[in-house]
């Protein structure tokens, strides 16, 4: 079958590519570090613990910022924020996007046309602009508004993907057979549609996670993300900008953290895709 809908192979036949393993390791490292900050950090993130703009040393692995705070501690907390934003935004995108996508797939022609056009407009809208609008409409910048803005922007993409995938499933004869078997629409979604579109959606969620991390960094960089003292990578980059010629490490360290997480997520997503898509799997 050429137009097979990808299915996740069962665990026994899961083929782990080196890229997938590297991606999973990078993501895992960030998760461990991010969770660790809930219990312990090398220093108090708000405390001035040493000289200003100190170079990396045994005491301060990533040096200190312009207020003398430990940069490594701030980067660790930044990982937690990045992961929280990614998880929150993807969760919002999944719930809103999959729901709207399914509605559009099942809807009458007119409703579907309206929904599809709305989604296209939303997708054409830059995430940052949408975030600014949401921040402007709410009490002000916070972690919550950042998550909401990124999640809503991503949900348009998820909705469009869900709609296309669900339409493809709904055209199959097994859906007609299910209707003849007396299965209702909710049953058809639960038993047939979701299991068949899930593998592709999961891969997309992993990619959206990476995009959300970047979007959060951008928002924070512009001062639209979590306000201080929550050390988001984007805010660290913004603070380091003023001293980037005298103390470049202040920008390099959070930059490395951001890049390693996003690369990790993309490798992870690519690996998932190889597992999920039988046509890309070599024998």
């Amino acid at each position, binding site marked *: 079958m050429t137009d097979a809908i990808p299915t996740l192979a069962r665990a026994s036949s899961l083929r782990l590519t080196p890229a997938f393993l590297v991606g999973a390791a990078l993501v895992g490292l960030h998760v461990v570090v991010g969770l660790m900050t809930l219990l312990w950090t090398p220093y108090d993130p708000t405390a001035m613990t040493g000289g200003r703009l100190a170079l990396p040393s045994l005491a301060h692995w990533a040096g200190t910022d312009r207020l003398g705070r430990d940069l490594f501690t701030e980067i660790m907390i930044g990982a937690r924020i990045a992961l929280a934003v990614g998880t929150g935004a993807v969760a919002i995108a999944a719930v809103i996007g999959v729901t709207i996508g399914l509605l559009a797939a099942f809807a009458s022609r007119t409703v579907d046309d309206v929904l599809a056009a709305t989604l296209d407009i939303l997708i054409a809208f830059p995430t940052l602009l949408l975030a600014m609008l949401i921040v402007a409409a709410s009490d002000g910048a916070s972690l919550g508004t950042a998550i909401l803005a990124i999640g809503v922007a991503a949900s348009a993409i998820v909705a469009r993907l869900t709609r296309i995938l669900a339409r493809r499933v709904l055209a199959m004869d097994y859906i007609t057979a299910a209707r003849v078997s007396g299965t209702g629409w909710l049953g058809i979604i639960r*038993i047939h549609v979701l299991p068949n579109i899930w593998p592709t959606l999961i891969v997309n969620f992993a990619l959206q996670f990476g995009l959300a991390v970047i979007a959060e960094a951008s928002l924070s960089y512009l001062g639209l993300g979590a306000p201080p003292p929550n050390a988001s990578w984007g805010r660290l980059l913004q603070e380091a900008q003023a001293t980037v010629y005298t103390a470049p490490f202040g920008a390099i360290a959070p930059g490395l953290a951001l890049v390693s997480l996003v690369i990790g997520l993309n490798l992870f997503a690519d690996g998932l895709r190889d597992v999920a898509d039988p046509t890309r799997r070599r024998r």
Partner: protein
Amino acid sequence: MSLIDLTAVSFSYGRGRRVLDGIDLRIEAGRNLGIVGESGSGKTTILRLLLGLALPTTGRIAFNGAPLDPGNRSFMRDFRRAVQAVFQDPYSSLDPRQKIADIIAEPLRSLNVETDISAAVAGALASVDLPPDAAQRYPHEFSGGQRQRIAIARAIVSRPELLLADEVVSALDLTTRIRIVELLKTLSEKMTLVLVSHDIGFVALLCHDLIILEKGRVVEQGPAGSILSSPQHPYTQRLLASTPRLPDFA
């Protein structure tokens, strides 16, 4: 007593062209019916109407003498239990993510049939000559002919009175085709068959009565024997003359 009656049924999509025009047909228990037509004849639409998946634009459809009522849950439950279907493409008609046991059990679960589900599935598999261990496997592990047997097992698990078959052998090889015909013949001792097909030879093997459709209208109907031996309508004559046959060397 007729199972399903279509009276003066017409169907058009939106405000478009009429796909079916003034169809009268009666499906009687114990008399297998063949609906024969080429592309554009409206045979797929008739099938959708017979399955309650579409409603006629004008005209009436009755099941066991009562008008088909999609809003009435218990009526539709009885209807779905009694009227089941098998489709053309055995690769598209089985959900690739489901185990065979769940595929076959779907009508029982969805229609809340009170029965021992695993025993019913085993029984259905046996009826279509598949081994019991097939239940724990997935569709991709089976050939086209075997998949069509699985689709038939799903259609007969609720012990329907009527089995509608839409071009069920068109996608199969000749040798597989003849085995599915034998299976359908066995099944027709317990249920009535309605075969929708372009292939008059296949339909003729199993049906007592034939309906010939052309461009949404019935051009000829009656007992298969008399239509095949003395087709009256020019279209039926052309259809029969066009059907390729092995050259006779006797």
